[in-house]
């Protein structure tokens, strides 16, 4: 956990504000001495974010007090703050939680500011809609992203294997895996991490089969037969040495540093397009990006452009308009755009994209091109997942995937327990 309050700047900012206020040049809401901002992410994101809050303070006088945590610590803290009536003014929000927070008025509708301090006239329509709950706007998308397969191109070169393209299928994956096994580089590097308990990968695979994880009314959208096939397929990949062993995969407990790609145990890893930037800072090798493998040649529709994250305004915030003004600055200011790049995803304003594009380094360029050129991989945006999706991911998809991986359960037993457990959790919520 890191809290950043630069006292000197804070004092300077607030005294400048008082002076300006006395001169009567500031709008009324700028009386707010400071805004509180909270987000999840790592140091790279924090550095960029704080550079922008400094720009905003310099331009508008309002000081911004930021705080960031890792994803796992972020949600307990935010829920506790919200319960205590002490939620920050500006809250980074995820597609998974936005409905829950909106329905409980823990975040505020922003429609009254649209056209005022918030100019969204050219904002991408699908990203705008992604931030709506029951027709009202609760979150401003900070960027579009998609799931993506990160590819260690240096390792592929070393092994003498041709890296995959967006056309590749699970059969191609099998061939790549065999080739990697034969090449035996870096102490037996495997082609891919074990994706059998990766929720995004399961969802992508289901969507290609015309199904999904959840329906719009929060029920399961796949059945036992799908799950059996899924686990059987991964068992085959694991037994063939295409993916890493269950024991190796269990080392991955969430942080990027523990992933198979960073540890050098696999040449590919399922991730999100915007995370290429973060992963590239952790590995020496050059990383590239392709779509997830197709279930069969020519089958698409598994991917979708999802709002990678939103900024929302706290429901109990006393400075909603000031917060909305900051949001507008964050998404549209050209200087801010240059600092932020595509670290939170592809910007949703065309003007911002134009500013960002020429300033990007090679990796960010790759991410931008990938999301812009998904082609037939792209399907429709699925409905927001039910509130207990996070629990089903953590306590069923992950645990049962490990049980099947370690051989403690057969694919049939795993599939049965997954469906029964998920239905139980969904009915309990």
């Amino acid at each position, binding site marked *: 956990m890191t809290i950043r309050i630069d006292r000197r700047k804070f004092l300077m900012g607030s005294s400048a504000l008082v002076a300006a206020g006395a001169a009567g040049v500031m709008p009324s809401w700028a009386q707010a001495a400071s805004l509180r901002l909270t987000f999840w992410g790592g140091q790279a994101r924090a550095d960029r974010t704080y550079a922008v809050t400094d720009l905003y303070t310099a331009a508008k006088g309002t000081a911004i007090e930021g705080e960031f945590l890792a994803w796992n610590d972020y949600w307990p803290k935010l829920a506790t703050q919200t319960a205590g009536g002490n939620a920050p003014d500006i809250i980074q929000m995820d597609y998974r939680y936005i409905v829950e*927070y909106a329905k409980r008025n823990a975040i505020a509708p922003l429609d009254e500011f649209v056209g005022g301090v918030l100019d969204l006239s050219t904002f991408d329509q699908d990203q705008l809609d992604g931030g709506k709950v029951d027709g009202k706007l609760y979150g401003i998308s900070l960027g579009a992203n998609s799931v993506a397969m990160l590819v260690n191109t240096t390792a592929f070169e070393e092994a003498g294997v041709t890296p995959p393209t967006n056309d590749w299928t699970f059969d191609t994956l099998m061939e790549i895996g065999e080739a990697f096994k034969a090449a035996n580089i870096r102490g037996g590097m495997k082609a891919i991490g074990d994706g059998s308990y990766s929720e995004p990968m399961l969802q992508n695979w289901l969507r290609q089969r015309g199904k999904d994880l959840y329906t719009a009314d929060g029920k399961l959208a796949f059945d036992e037969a799908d799950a059996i096939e899924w686990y059987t397929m991964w068992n085959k990949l694991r037994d063939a040495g295409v993916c890493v062993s269950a024991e190796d995969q269990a080392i991955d407990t*969430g942080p990027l540093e523990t992933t198979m790609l960073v540890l050098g145990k696999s040449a590919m890893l399922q991730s999100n397009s915007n995370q290429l930037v973060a992963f590239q800072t952790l590995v020496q090798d050059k990383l590239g990006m392709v779509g997830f493998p197709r279930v069969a040649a020519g089958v698409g529709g598994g991917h979708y452009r999802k709002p990678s994250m939103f900024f929302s305004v706290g429901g109990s915030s006393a400075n909603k308009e000031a917060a909305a003004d900051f949001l507008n600055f964050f998404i549209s200011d050209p200087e801010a755009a240059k600092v932020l790049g595509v670290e939170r995803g592809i910007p949703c304003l065309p003007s911002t994209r134009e500013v960002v594009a020429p300033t990007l380094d090679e990796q960010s360029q790759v991410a931008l091109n990938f999301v812009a050129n998904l082609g037939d991989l792209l399907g429709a945006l699925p409905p927001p997942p039910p509130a207990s999706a*996070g*629990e089903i991911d953590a306590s069923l998809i992950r*645990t049962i995937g490990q*049980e099947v991986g*370690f051989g403690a359960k057969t694919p049939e037993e795993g599939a049965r327990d997954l469906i029964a457990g998920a239905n139980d959790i969904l009915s309990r919520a």
Partner: protein
Amino acid sequence: MTARSLQSGASARERAATPSLWSRIWQNDAPGYLFLLPWLIGFLGLTIGPMITSLYLSFTDFDLLTSPDWVGANNYMRMFTNDPKFWASMRVTMFFVVFSVPLKLAFALAVAMLLNRGIKGLPMYRALFYLPSLLGASVAIAILWRQIFAGDGLVNKLLLVFGIEGPSWISNPKTSLWTLIILSIWQFGSPMIIFLAGLRQIPQDMYEAASLDGASKWRQFVKITLPLLTPVVFFNAIIQTIEAFKSFTPAFIISGGTGNPINSTLFYTLYLYQEAFGFFRMGYASALAWVLLALVGIFTAFSFLTSKYWVHYDE
């Protein structure tokens, strides 16, 4: 308020034969309570208050964002009839308690006996051996442990010297819990210090008399050291058992908060934490906390009840 109290105190002194209960309490105990006040405020405000709240919450559904809904004993019913994860976490915790506590105590006693031979520089050794206990519950040690027992960690590098290729201890469900037990044994410092103090209390002339009678070292240990040390063993066993039930940080850090692989390190406390702060079921988590309290209470009561059969106080 003060003036009136003083007055009643004065009149009570006059009617010394029949002082009222309140004035007696005031006169005798007020200074005591005054000195207790800082602790008492903390105890009532930070311990008793939250405990009562949690008892209430354990009969509700509460997700932090909306107000609690009364559900009666549903949380407790679910726990015992319809929650495999509850039993899984109970098994892990029981296994941990049953193996870590006796092993840790045995190790602590062995080190204490080694240090009790009047060696030079005892305070230094005592401090050195105590050090792991000071660091024990910290995040840094848990992270260090992760490195030591990782697939390419220190332990496997040592094993490789002997030609053995070790597994990745922390990510293998068969061995992951044992790495936590070893971590717990390694923190033997505080029971060791108490054992050392206990050993010092045993009169030397008993050993001298036994030696004259030709008793072997082992016999001396079994017939003199152990019986006279039982009160200390008893104390240490209770404290360490409670500690073991409450153990949380190492499992949280080493498994990244998941209790994996395959829930093999899902301590009861970790499950409680997941329910509360992972899935926002504060009501259910509160019920879990109360069941843990009851369980620790039962264990402690059982220890006290059986103690008269094996603990010897030399009176």
